[in-house]
């Protein structure tokens, strides 16, 4: 089973707890994890990846095993410890505090944290 941790707002949207588990068939990649996640929780479609392009939304990141996997190919295998369920696959929002309204412009530098 793949362990997935979602950010606060997506947990509320999907009405799930702090961690959920997915049975991913075939090779375990970012794409296969997200495909299964969206199949189980359709309300997350479009909230992590763009509906049309399937690109990761600009202010979300993917972490696992203390590494930022956000720029890895979506079809690359995830670390073995994620595939085996030892470590979670973490979806988290970029910290973009300050304005109180919106994340800054897409090209701005944002600080990434696990908190």
């Amino acid at each position: 089973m793949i362990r997935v941790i979602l950010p606060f707002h997506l947990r509320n949207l999907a009405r799930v707890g702090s961690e959920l588990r997915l049975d991913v068939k075939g090779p375990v990649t970012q794409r296969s994890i997200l495909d299964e996640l969206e199949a189980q929780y359709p309300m997350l479609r479009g909230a992590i990846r763009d509906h049309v392009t399937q690109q990761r939304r600009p202010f979300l990141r993917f972490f696992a095993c203390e590494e930022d996997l956000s720029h890895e190919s979506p079809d690359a295998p995830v670390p073995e410890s994620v595939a085996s369920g030892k470590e979670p696959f973490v979806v988290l929002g970029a910290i973009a505090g300050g304005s109180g309204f919106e994340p800054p412009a897409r090209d701005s530098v944002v600080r990434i944290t696990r908190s």
Partner: protein
Amino acid sequence: MSKVRVLVGTRKGAFVLESDGKRQQWEISGPHFAGWEIYHLKGSAADPNRLYASQSSGWFGQQIQRSNDGGKTWEPVGNKFAYDGVPGTHQWYDGSPHPWEFKRVWHLEPSLTDPDMVYAGVEDAAIFSTTDGGRNWQELAGLRGHGTGPQWQPGAGGLCLHTIILDPSHPERMWIAISAAGAFRTEDGGKTWKPINRGLHSPYIPNPTAEIGHCIHHIAMHKSRPGVLFMQKHWDVMRSDDGGEQWREVSGNLPTDFGFVIDVHAHEPETIYVVPIKSDSEHYVHDGKLRVFRSRTGGDQWEPLTQGLPQSNCYVNVLRDAMAVDSLEQCGVYFGTTGGQIYVSADAGDTWTPIVRDLPVVLSVEVQTLS
């Protein structure tokens, strides 16, 4: 006994305020969708317990929420707003071509007769509709394909379609407004659209009387007179008596004619309300006084309504979708501010009371009159 339900969208969630017909004691529920921007929520005229909400976030994109029980519980429905065909480009702020990109839903307008049918006005400007209660959305592409689309340019708030008005006497006719493209009308259910901006004068665009490019902030109509429209433009309060073919200015004696909201009394089609804002550089009320201005003559002659509203040190704004009226015998008027206050007048504007004072920035206010 009649009661009212006020639907409030804010920067950090939605709130539902309910009262009996006296509109003195209020029950407040929320925040629903805490922490998300709720640009708009509105109930169906055909089924008052059917509500729709636009929930969005710069991080997580767009969601549409639906309630079947008057806002007690909600469920997410479809959130895929894909432009029809190859989207093409509009103008960016600097005049360069910019690809059409969906950002959010600004306004939801349920059908007057079918609770499963809703129109959505979105940024970048387009209109979508659903016929299955929000599960699937299709663009009415004739608007963006009208021919002037490549010339549309965003206002400060983005290239947003923020106003949708349905004609109760003619189901195929509706009006929309876009900042900063202008107003458009369809007579065939959205297949084809006509710009209706004649008479508008906007000195901040290269051709002040151009067919498109006007920054319209809001339009209001009384359901008994679908041909008469009232507009709060960026600057100028306008009216049209022929469905938008021709507009004339009715700012009259307003202290400033910049503003965002405009609405019409439920029973008096010539009684209209605006909240003047000092200027487009200073988005707060004039002279530190929160004043609603009422005209009983359809414009030109205005009176300030101040009783119960702060008359010193007030620097809030009232955004374009943040005013509404109920249809009780004594018409109630409601508005919300960027300071988080929701005010109600149960006597058509003569006196005002805050329902709640400290919500997040109020983006929208709608009211349902329930029997």
